[in-house]
């Protein structure tokens, strides 16, 4: 039997993701990669992969896959129902799949994104050093479709039983942020950020989390396009901030009032529309 999995059902969106392709921004190539890299690494550890192996990133679950050969699988991210051949199984725990077994993932009760790791990793060809799907640029594999067959790499040594805690997606997020590089476009940027309150918009995606709420008051005009980092809080003329996530454009012309600390971006990547967001300017 070949080491593959077949997508029986994708759910709302299923993408191949690893830790992305940083280092190519000067070519106009976004970093891409899992928006919750912490959950991706945990999933890989549970199946004995190296931490950065390619997994499936699922938006609101809903995926079903059939194993082409014996393999180990693990689902991380928020707490979610997992079934093997219809029988309840555990998320956040290694699962053995035999050839022909079907793994189904339900809809997470909180949060947005689940990660499915498979022993050996998803072995599609790399592009610029990564297997990640970049939805902005069209680099990497296409979003998965029903009946797609994905090759798996060679599995590492068998791992011992292990368990990891599920991601907890809170209803309110307070994000630490460093002011700049363009906080001088805003009258008292720190106070505006400290006093404002937003909710995550349903127009958010892997490019950016769009926030809806307090309009930030800024100068009119645009900046000649300049380099953008992941976590940059860009403020268009309407004052509603956008926090850049992994598939963000490498340059932009709206002023960036501040940058969210990197370790906290995964919480935003897991925040459902309606989640309340505030900023805490630090240092």
């Amino acid at each position, binding site marked *: 039997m070949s080491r593959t999995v077949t997508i029986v059902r994708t759910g709302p969106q299923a993408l191949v993701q690893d830790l992305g392709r940083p*280092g190519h921004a000067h070519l106009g190539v976004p970093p891409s990669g899992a928006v919750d890299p912490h959950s991706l690494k945990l999933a890989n550890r549970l199946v004995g992969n190296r931490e950065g192996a390619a997994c499936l990133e699922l938006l609101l679950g809903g995926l079903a896959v059939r194993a082409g050969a014996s393999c180990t699988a693990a689902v991380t991210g928020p707490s979610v129902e997992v079934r093997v051949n219809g029988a309840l199984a555990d998320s956040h725990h290694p699962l053995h799949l035999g050839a022909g077994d079907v793994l189904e993932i339900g809809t997470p009760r909180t949060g947005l994104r689940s990660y499915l790791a498979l022993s050996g990793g998803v072995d599609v060809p790399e592009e610029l050093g990564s297997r990640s799907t970049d939805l902005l640029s069209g680099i990497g594999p296409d979003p998965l479709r029903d009946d797609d067959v994905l090759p798996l790499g060679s599995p590492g040594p068998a791992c011992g039983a292990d368990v990891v805690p599920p991601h907890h997606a809170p209803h309110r997020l307070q994000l630490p942020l*460093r002011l700049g590089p363009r906080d001088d476009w805003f009258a008292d940027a720190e106070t505006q950020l400290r006093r404002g309150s937003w909710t995550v918009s349903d127009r958010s995606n892997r490019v950016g989390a769009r926030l809806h709420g307090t309009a930030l008051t800024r100068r009119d005009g645009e900046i000649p396009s300049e380099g*953008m980092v992941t976590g940059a809080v860009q403020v268009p003329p309407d004052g509603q901030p956008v926090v850049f996530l992994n598939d963000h454009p490498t340059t932009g012309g709206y002023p960036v009032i501040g940058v969210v600390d990197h370790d906290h971006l995964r919480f935003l990547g897991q925040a459902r529309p309606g989640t309340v967001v505030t900023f805490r300017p630090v240092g």
Partner: protein
Amino acid sequence: MLLRRCGTDALLVEVDSLTEVAAVRAALQGLPGIEELVPAARTVLVKGALTEVRKVLEDVDLTEVPAAHPREVTIPVTYDGPDLDLVARTAGITPDEVVKLHTQASYEVAFCGFAPGFGYLTGLPEVLRQPRLDSPRTKVPRGSVGIAGEFTAAYPRATPGGWRLIGRTEITLFDPGAETPALLQPGDLVRFVVA
């Protein structure tokens, strides 16, 4: 030169001209520990090795771009773009003269952005420095060669775009599966020739 903080591990170096951008980029290129080095119109974004970066920038001479050994790239173009006549009329010359001017000039990749492999080339003759279209096209075909402001560029793939299109090239500008994915990189010298 102004150093602006950009999160915990990056700096936005702001300068006054494209020449100064090139000087900053050249000074920082190859410095160990730098994770990203992104030149743009008036800035260079640098991520990583910030202590070293600050040290280098203290002594950088912005008037001088260190002599590098740039790659030279030739792009064959069929000059039959939908805006060729508009560009000629705006410049007060014939379409043939537009082609002659565009192919005689020597260009440099100032920076990339907008889309993977999209290089902003400087060196455009004065009369070809023209505004964008009033209304951008929803789809500019892959390989289109256009001008906008002080820049000329070729579109690596079909995207929306507002540049005035004067021609098209068959050359592959970006191939994510190739060993060198982007044909154009900051600092490269570029010439256009009639295909």
